[in-house]
């Protein structure tokens, strides 16, 4: 495909267009994704999650500069919420990433969730693949400001950075399950506000070594540019840890499994939304309503009859 060749040749416009094609689920998107897939798997994917307003975008802005100085090419996919009422969105993460300007080694894409839950958009990690094929060494993914249970990023990224700020909870808050368990690296940003030491020790108390990696807790100030080198070093260190042992392959397999299930689910949904299958479906719906069958039995029957994988 022409657009795929253009992406592989470093064409920014084509890369942006391909991401839109995937987001809008346009004709040709699946074929294009299939064609770029052999060219992916090189980039180190780093997810950033944490509550809204803790400075994820500003931190990424600083990290992009830091990794650019180290000669790396960086892609960023920044996700913001879509309005459930109007379907519209204001995507503002780019404002905090303005230092990047026209640097040819950086590609930033803002993305709206479009109804997908879990802090990501459906197309987020397909966009990551496009940026990987485009030749980026690292791809940063910024989730929507996540609460306590938006943990999808951890099963998708190689490295997950959980960002918090000082004075956002005591040691019991740190005990709670969820977002704290997914961090490979923990960051207390806005250290310039004070109170960061207490926050760091509360978090540090909760964390222990798992499979040879002990999540570090770092202090940063994106505002003042402090702690950025140390955070970049921790990201590189985690990458080396993943690559040195079985973990890189294991995370790739986790992601592949998830994407496989997801693709099957989507194909199934699409098959049923087609007219012919829709009629069969409606037949079963009527049978369920009149109590001739039950939903589970009907589902099994439909799956048996389906000619999938055309």
């Amino acid at each position, binding site marked *: 495909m022409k657009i795929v060749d253009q992406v592989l040749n470093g064409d*920014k*416009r084509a890369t*942006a*267009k391909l*991401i*839109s094609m995937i*987001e*809008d*689920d*346009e004709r040709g998107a699946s074929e294009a994704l299939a064609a770029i897939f052999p060219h992916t798997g090189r980039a180190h994917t780093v997810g950033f999650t944490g509550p809204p307003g803790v400075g994820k975008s500003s931190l990424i802005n600083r990290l992009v500069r830091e990794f650019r100085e180290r000669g790396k090419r960086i892609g960023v996919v920044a996700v913001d919420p*879509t*309005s459930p009422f*109007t*379907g*519209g*969105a*204001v*995507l*503002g993460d*780019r*404002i905090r990433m*303005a230092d990047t*300007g*026209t640097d040819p080694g950086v*590609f*930033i*894409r*803002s993305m*709206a969730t*479009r109804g997908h839950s879990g802090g990501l958009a459906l197309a987020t990690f397909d966009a990551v693949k496009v940026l990987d094929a485009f030749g980026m060494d690292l791809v940063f993914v910024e989730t929507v400001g996540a609460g306590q249970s938006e943990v999808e990023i951890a099963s998708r990224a190689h490295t997950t950075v959980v960002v918090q700020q000082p004075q956002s909870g005591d040691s019991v808050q740190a005990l709670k399950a969820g977002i704290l368990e997914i961090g490979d690296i923990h960051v207390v940003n806005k250290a310039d506000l004070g109170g960061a030491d207490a926050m760091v020790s509360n978090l540090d108390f909760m964390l222990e070594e798992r499979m040879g990696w002990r999540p570090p807790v770092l202090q940063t100030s994106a505002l003042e540019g402090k702690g950025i080198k140390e955070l970049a070093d921790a990201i590189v260190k985690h990458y080396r840890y993943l690559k040195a042992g079985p973990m890189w392959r294991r995370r790739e397999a986790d992601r592949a499994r998830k994407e496989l299930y997801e693709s099957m689910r989507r194909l199934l949904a699409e098959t049923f939304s087609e007219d012919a299958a829709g009629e069969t479906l409606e037949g079963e719906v009527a049978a369920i309503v009149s109590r001739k069958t039950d939903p589970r039995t009907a589902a099994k029957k439909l799956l048996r009859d389906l000619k999938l994988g055309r």
Partner: protein
Amino acid sequence: MAKKIRVLIAKPGLDGHDRGAKVVARALRDAGMEVIYTGLRQSPEDIVEAAIQEDVDAIGLSSLSGAHMALFPDVVKLLKKRGAGDIVVVGGGIIPDEDVAKLKRAGVRAVFGPGTPLAEIVEYFRSSGT
């Protein structure tokens, strides 16, 4: 999934008055569009780079500093240079009547001055994005 209209709202140049840009961004959001807001003090180069990476259908430029005659046509020119002349450029802000025709000749498709009903602006972006 239907194609979403994506719009970049940007403030080129040095003025810090972004109320109007934000009001327009909000109206477009409420009309179901995806609006990328890039904030203050952007150079034409920054704006064009962002528009290409974000694959927007249109760019809305807001200027209240009087520098629109330099900045708006620059954005149009740079887009053409990058092979992205199909992206629609419109302007808003404090723009004297005598400048409107000149801007349009320079490739700025529409200019919305103070008092323009938001519905008119929304409709313009909607028709340019489809």
